[in-house]
């Protein structure tokens, strides 16, 4: 446990630069975007005002400038996409960086006097906590934008929305903040499960190389089959599941896959891994 915590902090700090730049980049791009978008909106409003269009008329043409609308602009969405792509990339790179290059750090990690799964979990939670950190900072940024908009746009051209409403209806938001707390746990644990499967696939490749890619493909297929077996069953029998059943089924399948991934990863790391 002790070594795991140390390793987790170690891995997390290794990603520090990437993690902090992602947060910084998100805020910068979204902030700059907010500035440009609101400026272009205001200049359009001025143009229409000069033409003698009434406030009502301007609103019917341009609509309000509000946080909800802003979440649909590319300025807002692009950093989120970037974050997703970057974290996906790092989920793979976090393993390969220890094998690649002249100095093979994986030797050191594998020779640590602790269970080898500590390495796996340290890397896993590094990614997972980075995701949570990024999403949480996005939540704080939303509050900042909400506070900023009325300072830039005059009252009649904007509307106050609650953050809950923006999250409910905004672009991408429902994926980052699932509707309810139980669903939040469900969604993020499912994400963790996907990450665990991905790590297992990487370990297959690291253990068996070319043959490993084949085995990894097989494992990926098996995982998909296990996870979606309730849906396959549903398609086959045409039975409707109530929400609670759907929830239960996918929770069970998720737990099964997590367990399986841990077992397989442990086996690969302790018995099959090659440096």
């Amino acid at each position, binding site marked *: 446990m002790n070594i795991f915590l140390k390793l987790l902090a170690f891995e997390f700090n290794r990603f520090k630069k990437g993690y902090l730049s992602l947060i910084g980049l998100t805020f910068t791009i979204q902030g700059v975007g907010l500035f440009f978008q609101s400026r272009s909106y205001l200049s359009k409003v001025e143009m229409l005002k000069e033409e003698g269009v009434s406030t009502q008329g301007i609103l019917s043409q341009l609509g309000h400038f509000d946080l909800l609308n802003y979440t649909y602009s590319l300025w807002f969405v692009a950093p989120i996409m970037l974050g997703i792509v970057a974290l996906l990339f790092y989920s793979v790179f976090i393993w390969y960086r220890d094998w690649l290059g002249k100095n093979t750090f994986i030797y050191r990690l594998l020779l640590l*006097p602790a269970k080898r799964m500590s390495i796996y979990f340290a890397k896993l939670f590094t990614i997972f906590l980075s995701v949570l950190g990024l999403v949480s900072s996005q939540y704080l940024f939303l509050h900042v934008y909400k506070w900023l908009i009325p300072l830039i746009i005059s009252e009649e051209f904007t509307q106050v929305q609650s953050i809950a409403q923006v999250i409910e209806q905004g672009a991408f938001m429902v994926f980052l903040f699932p509707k309810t707390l139980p669903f939040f746990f469900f969604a993020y644990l499912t994400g963790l499960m996907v990450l665990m499967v991905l790590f297992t696939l990487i370990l297959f490749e690291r253990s068996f190389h070319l043959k490993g890619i084949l085995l990894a493909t097989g494992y990926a297929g098996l995982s998909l089959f296990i996870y979606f077996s309730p849906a396959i069953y549903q398609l086959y029998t045409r039975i409707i599941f109530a929400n609670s059943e759907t929830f239960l089924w996918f929770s069970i399948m998720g737990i099964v896959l997590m367990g399986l991934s841990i077992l397989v990863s442990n086996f690969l790391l*302790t018995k099959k891994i090659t440096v």
Partner: protein
Amino acid sequence: MIEVKQLKKKYGKRHVLKDISFQAHKGEITCLIGVNGVGKTTILKGIMNLTPLNGGMVEIDGKPLTSERYEDITFIPDTLTMMPSMTVKQSMDFMKDYYRSWNPKRAEDLLTFFKIKKEERISDLSKGNKAKVNMLLGLALDVDYLLMDEPFSGIDLFSREQILSVFSSHLVEDRGVLLTTHDLTDFETLVDKVVLIDDGQVVREFYTEEMRETEGKSVVDVMREVYQ
């Protein structure tokens, strides 16, 4: 005692290790010798569970080797195992952090002995100094057994001499050393025991002193017999 029993290893259809058995004792320097590609490194990796074996087992003092026992045995591969971005100090701190058996005093002694600056980044080190840091990180652990893979390969003469002097110093005494090499020049006298490997098998296993006394042959003489 490190006891290696009937190790087997296949790469595809090629049997790299057919049946390797030998012992390495505490307080002795055991040398695995063989031409390049004979599987010496694979044996060390196999012992440390860094590559899967197709058969056989390894026991340390009569017990199977698990990762918890990496406090008692360590492996110094022929590449540096720290990240290039780290400094020598950071590398030492890392080891101190994770190994109870880390001996800070010995680490400092080694640092002075090798004349390496703590503040230097690993990526800036010369090849010889990298090898020395590598040696340092392993030797500063209070372990019973040290496995070294080609400790002298590709380094300059002076570094080689420095590292060689380590073997005759108090830094190694009482510990069991198992090392691999394909070139025994300069340190034949240091080696207590030799295991000659060819075609995936142990062809000869002998104590150097015994060999000199009973048959009047040096290790190189025996190597000639075997490999020519």
